[in-house]
């Protein structure tokens, strides 16, 4: 407990530094790793991280000590050589990609281990530190080294956010990217450089053997929770930071404990939890679905009110008028208003609140669904016009575009609902 407090209250500035380093490293590798996971290139990351070992040894030999600049450069170069070799072999032989990657991984790692063993026999006292590159030791990183690793992480983040659109294209549809004249080969090259850098910055904290887990697992775990790229990246970064810090904590508390394996243990735990509780498996899903359904109903109601104001030729509504309509849901409506404004569906100015052109078509759809459902209940289920509103009030949030098309077809595109109000379809229906 004492250790826990000591660690997490950051009294020790060196702990603060390490945690900051791990955080930057976690974000960088999670971002890059998520892209290569989506690109189905997870194996390549694993090969690169094993392949940097000979370069680490070479850097050590050249510097004669554990100089991080030499080691990072050596690691980067041997990672780059492995990447280049694997794409060259793929282009110029008929070997399958996974056998190429597996051979490169084992050959480079084998050479690395041989070199490491030879160095250990050489009797250089500095050699002890070199072992930490196998399984990682976050606590052992010197402050000066942290600046190098942290700086590289920042550079990765910067380049990634600059190239977000290009990397998205590279993963989803590189052929289209090439067709519109983007230099896809160059973009792939930059991505590979980032991937190697992401491995290199992690080798001291996590170690070459397990670095691939830090690249791939956060994205894979986050994929259980979301279907959108941006939230996916953020969540992956969060998972990565969390397990990075926890792993560092364990290796701080237990002497001689390497960091990498513990980071992986926590990552696996997160992945397992994601697998069990994710929206796709349904436990938390229902809770979230209900929340987001309720939020959607509030937004829909607000847009409907604004649309109806337009229908009676009242340009915009004041906030008071809106709140008066929903006296029991002021807070929710205020929140919805904020969200809709941010999405560009609603415009607020000095005169009040009104729909944007984008918002108008969304709102029109809600009103259309409402009125179509009323017609359906009235015509096909023989329910009296004054009894159809309640059900339509619920169905308007639920009906899918497919059902809408079906309704339109069955009802033969009716012009009016049972209350003689226009069913809006084009903007001139306003």
């Amino acid at each position, binding site marked *: 407990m004492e250790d826990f407090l000591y660690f997490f209250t950051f009294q020790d500035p060196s702990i603060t530094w390490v945690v900051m380093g791990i955080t930057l490293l976690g974000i960088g590798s999670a971002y890059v790793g998520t892209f290569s996971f989506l690109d189905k290139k997870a194996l390549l990351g694993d090969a690169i991280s094993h392949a940097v070992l000979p370069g680490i040894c070479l850097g050590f030999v050249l510097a004669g000590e554990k100089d991080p600049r030499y080691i990072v450069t050596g690691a980067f170069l041997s990672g780059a050589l492995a990447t280049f070799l694997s794409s060259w072999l793929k282009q110029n032989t008929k070997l399958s990609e996974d056998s190429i990657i597996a051979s490169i991984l084992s050959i480079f790692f084998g050479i690395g281990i041989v070199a490491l063993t030879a160095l250990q026999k050489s009797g250089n006292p500095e050699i002890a530190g070199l072992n930490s590159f196998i399984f990682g030791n976050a606590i052992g990183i010197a402050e000066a080294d942290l600046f190098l690793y942290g700086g590289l992480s920042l550079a990765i983040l910067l380049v990634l956010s600059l190239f977000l659109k290009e990397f998205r294209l590279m993963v989803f549809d590189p*052929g289209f990217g090439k067709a519109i004249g983007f230099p896809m080969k160059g973009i792939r090259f930059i991505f590979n450089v980032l991937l190697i850098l992401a491995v290199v910055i992690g080798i001291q904290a996590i170690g070459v053997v397990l670095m691939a887990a830090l690249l791939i697992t956060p994205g894979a775990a986050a994929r259980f929770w979301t279907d959108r790229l941006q939230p996916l990246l953020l969540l992956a970064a969060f998972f990565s930071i969390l397990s990075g810090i926890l792993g560092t904590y364990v290796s701080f508390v237990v002497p001689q404990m390497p960091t990498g394996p513990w980071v992986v243990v926590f990552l696996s735990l997160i992945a397992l939890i994601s697998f069990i509780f994710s929206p796709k498996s349904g436990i938390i899903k229902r809770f979230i679905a209900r929340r987001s359904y309720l939020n959607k109903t509030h937004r829909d109601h607000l847009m409907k009110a604004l649309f109806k104001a337009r229908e009676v030729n009242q340009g915009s509504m004041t906030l008071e008028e809106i709140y008066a309509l929903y006296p029991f849901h002021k807070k929710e409506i205020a929140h919805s208003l904020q969200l809709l404004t941010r999405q560009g569906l609603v415009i607020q100015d000095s005169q009040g609140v009104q729909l944007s052109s984008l918002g108008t078509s969304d709102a029109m759809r809600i009103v259309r669904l409402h009125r179509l459902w009323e017609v359906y209940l009235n015509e096909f289920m023989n329910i009296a016009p004054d009894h159809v509103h309640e059900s339509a009030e619920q169905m308007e949030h639920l009906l899918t*575009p497919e059902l809408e098309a079906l309704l339109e077809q069955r009802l033969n595109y009716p012009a009016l609902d049972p209350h003689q109000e226009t069913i809006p379809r084009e903007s001139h229906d306003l």
Partner: protein
Amino acid sequence: MITQVPHPVLEVHDLTVSYDQHPVLWNVDLSLPAGQLIGILGPNGAGKSTLIKSIMGLIQPTSGYIKIFDKPLPDVRSRISYVPQRESVDWNFPASVLDVVVMGTYGKLGLFRRPGKKEVQIAQDALDQVGMMAYSKRQISELSGGQQQRVFIARALAQQADLYLMDEPFAGVDMATETAIFQLLQDMARAGKTVLVVHHDIHSAMNFFEWCIMLNLHLVASGPKDQVMTEELLRKTYGGKLNLLTQVTDLIRKQDFNPLKR
């Protein structure tokens, strides 16, 4: 039956294309007029996709060249729009329908610039044109095959180009939608755009195309619909195997080098 036109939008000059060893397009030489809806017809494996990909510069031809708007491709890239076959991408990628259509604006945006309100509006309009507005926020993996195809068409529309190349855009699209989109393409042609469509249904090809290209490893015909959609030429395109060409291809494949390459 190959009609050449003066001042063509697209000129394909003596194009031969090979994969590894074997050639799949032999000496295709054609020119196309502006402002027309043009069909590319031919059996499976005829080289239709290969022709489109070579025009887009995605495949390096073995010999011959292509000029668009009388210029080489790199000068006019932003004026050309491309719809690949739907199977060419992974639809499990985390993106919404709108995200994919916005990609159509990337070409004009160029590198590094992020899409903004204007690009989103262009994408929304394109979605509206293919009748997919209501799906704009949906995850792309949750679309049916025909809907995915329509998303690709919308992405092409969002490119706001002058020449459209579409590789089987109607595969898996229902009849009503096909007709509606064909009419949209006709309107675009009338507005001066040139639209090339790889298509498999001879019946609707008869109805909608003004100009047809018929392909089966070599160019069988290229010209106004009335002149080329004859029984004889159709039989030449689809009927029987092109025994000789296929055998020559096999022969070349057995060599250790490609004798057609210069």
